[in-house]
């Protein structure tokens, strides 16, 4: 494991992605000190101000203001907080549920595997965005509801991919050997199988974070995400849509923020997959 992690930290792909994720995470954590204004403060005297470098820009609003006179930069920074909270907790939640069921299904096989497999099949036959919209309607809006909706939709992604990996690992003789030495099922899964599936798990989590950011943006865009008092990138896009001709920056900036965040997580996932996956790493040597 140490070798694989060291390898991952030497890969330029992973390093670049980590730098980007760290930047975004810093915005999220230190939003209070980084943002020049309160994201909810309105200045009705200067609405739809262009960015500071454009004609008619105001230096106190570096990226301009929106249709309600709120500072775009501050809203972007606070939006990062929402996006990061959702990315972190939704992907971890989906991972815990998905990985737990995947290990049980792949290790025990038989009826348990059949039941979990069919549940995943049925779950996955719903279009994921529609399913999360329906869930949001049922659950009501709010940050924790968004996280819950994403977890409930996306655990299947973990379950299906990991189950295949668990099946492969379980077929190794060392798993049978552990049983013969007197390991309980629980000990066998935790000590022999989980270490082998962890690299894939880490990769999947970072890819899931990208998906969670997109889904959160979609839900906020249609007004079924976090509450209106909490800035979110999807919300900003929805607000800016009507004034796209007067002020294209208001639309482009949150899209750019989403793009960079998703790209960073995808790059991280891809880099980790290349370096942590023993099979890929060995053929590349």
């Amino acid at each position: 494991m140490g070798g694989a992690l060291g390898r991952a930290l030497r890969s330029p792909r992973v390093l670049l992605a980590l730098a980007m994720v760290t930047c975004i995470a810093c915005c999220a954590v230190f939003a209070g000190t980084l943002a020049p204004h309160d994201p909810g403060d309105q200045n009705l005297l200067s609405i739809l101000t262009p960015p500071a470098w454009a004609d008619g820009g105001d230096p106190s609003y570096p990226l301009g203001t929106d249709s309600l006179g709120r500072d775009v930069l501050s809203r972007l920074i606070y939006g990062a907080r929402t996006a990061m909270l959702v990315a972190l907790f939704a992907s971890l939640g989906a991972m815990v549920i998905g990985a737990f069921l995947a290990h049980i299904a792949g290790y025990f096989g038989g009826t348990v595997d059949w039941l979990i497999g069919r549940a995943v099949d049925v779950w996955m036959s719903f279009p994921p965005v529609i399913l999360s919209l329906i869930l949001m309607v049922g659950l009501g809006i709010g940050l924790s509801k968004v996280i819950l909706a994403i977890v409930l939709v996306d655990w299947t992604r973990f379950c299906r991919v990991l189950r295949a990996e668990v099946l492969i690992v379980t077929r190794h003789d060392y798993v049978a050997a552990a049983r013969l030495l007197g390991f309980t099922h629980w000990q066998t899964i935790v000590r022999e199988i989980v270490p082998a599936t962890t690299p894939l798990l880490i990769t999947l989590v970072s890819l899931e974070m990208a998906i969670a950011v997109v889904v959160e943006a979609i839900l906020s865009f249609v007004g079924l995400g976090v509450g209106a008092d909490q800035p979110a990138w999807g919300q900003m896009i929805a607000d800016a849509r009507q004034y796209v001709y007067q002020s294209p920056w208001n639309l482009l900036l949150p899209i750019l923020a989403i793009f960079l965040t998703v790209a960073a997580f995808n790059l991280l996932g891809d880099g980790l997959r290349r370096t942590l996956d023993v099979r890929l790493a060995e053929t590349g040597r």
Partner: protein
Amino acid sequence: MTVLALQAKELVVGAHIDGAMVPAIRALSFALEPGKILGLVGESGAGKSMVGRAIAQLLPAGFAITSGSLLFEGSDLLQMPSAARRALLGRAIAFIPQAPMTSLNPVQTVGALFDEHLVRLGEARRSARRDRAVAMLTAARLPRAAELLTQYPHQLSGGMCQRVLIALAFSSNPRLVIADEPTTALDVTTHPPILRLIADMQREHGTAVIFITHDLRLAAQLCDQVTVMYAGRAVESGPARTVLATPAHPYTRCLQLANPSMRAERRALYVMPDQMPSLRQLRDLAGCHFAPRCPLAIDDCRRGEPESLAAAPDHQVACIRARATQTVAAPGGDLAAAGAAERPLLQVEDLRKHYDVGDGLFAGARTVAAVKQASFSIAANEFVALVGESGSGKSTIAKMLVGLEPPSGGKISLDGEDLTAPSARTSALRATRLQLVFQDPQSALNPRRRVASIVTQAMEAGSRHADWDARWARTRELLAEVGLAADFGTRLPGQLSGGQRQRINIARALCSLPKVLVADEIVSGLDVSIQAQLLNLLARLRAELGFAMLFISHDLSVVRHLCSRVLVMYGGEIVEQGPVEKVFAEPQHPHTRALISSVPPDDPAAKWAALAR
């Protein structure tokens, strides 16, 4: 003077290792006359398969031919344009691969496969191609050849696949055939007929054959000439029977002495220390490559690589101590079987296992009996062999004994305790008394655990939580038992060689001092010199620790060497059992006789009945 079918002159194949070029084959020369069989003999890593790959120019990544020449009928394969070489391959030069099952395209019928090949050979008419395919398959002694054309590879047995491949190889009337361990992946009883087929086809077509094998006794029976290879060098070459009757190189001699005999008196095996140097180690090795393991090595051996000398007019040997080779002898140890107790320790009565196949929903479920009926017992300290072909139910018995599969019927008892039904109680009993040594150490050792953690894994099972001081102490004991230094404890399985992994595998099973070991083909994939080390290790461990073993194997000479009693399985039943000497001397069941006759004789001058017509 006739033109040689194939001649290698000072062939050097280099491998890129850490930025340097290390020769994987060095200065290899041989000459193969038309219509003769040349055996390339050696252990894995000797570079023998590399020769076949060099001819096909299919060297693995990082390997390249750096100098020398390979003359096929006088023209250099390495110099000719690639189009000309491709025109020869598959036509004038054909290959018989090692793994027949994976060498046939699974989505093509045998007929389509032949058709494609014959089109390439220039046969335009479909009916002529079909007739030729049927004729070749019939010549390969495959029954119902016409029917076979419509079948897919997965419908054929391994032996049949290999016959199809042999028929394909000879259908172009090649002048050179390269056969790379053509029987290694097959069941022992199919070895003689496949070898006889290759020999017959070779005689009929007047083909020259390069026969790559690890089996000295087999080479003596089949080949006209042999070249023994060690660490990329031809150490000895000459007429097959001469080389193997009077080996001049100590390596050839040691290999012979490391191979257990099938017919001669039981004797201790000669154990070469260590293993063949890897390419990485070769780089730093001066002098004769065999010197570190050689019983005859003197200081001069380590100074320079020995020249090839003539031991006899047509017998070349690369050794400065060749004159002393015949003095190397196996240690005269006492091989009397350890006294086995009379009272049975492990008793198996009427054990059965059947599987339900078919999905049960649409097709009616059928049952297939993997083990129809098996009764036997093993006494304390007794080594009992279980022999039979693949699919005869050997491994199923092993799995039921250790509790990986529940039996469908019958009774297993150990020391009076009933172990038949898997439960928490029986698996706890088994964990301390009955252990399995897995066949493939690559799969049986967790690549993420260090050796110390693997061998003492039993100490963290269940509610036991031994501290690391206790585990390290036990690790040191166990590593010493299996002949490894204590610093192996911190290594990962990926850093061990095949033989070392198998030792760790055995050490783990011995951790809680079980009374019975079930060993499933534990020396099968290993080289002769490593196999000898492990066989001696098992015998020594029995004397020191005292345990009984069910030794599953397909290699009868190994069984004869190690075990006192043998069970012969055929089609899910134990068809014969008794003391090894008696069963092998007077086999009663036809299958036992077939198994015994498929082992080539020790004496290179003796005729192998199975190969004679």
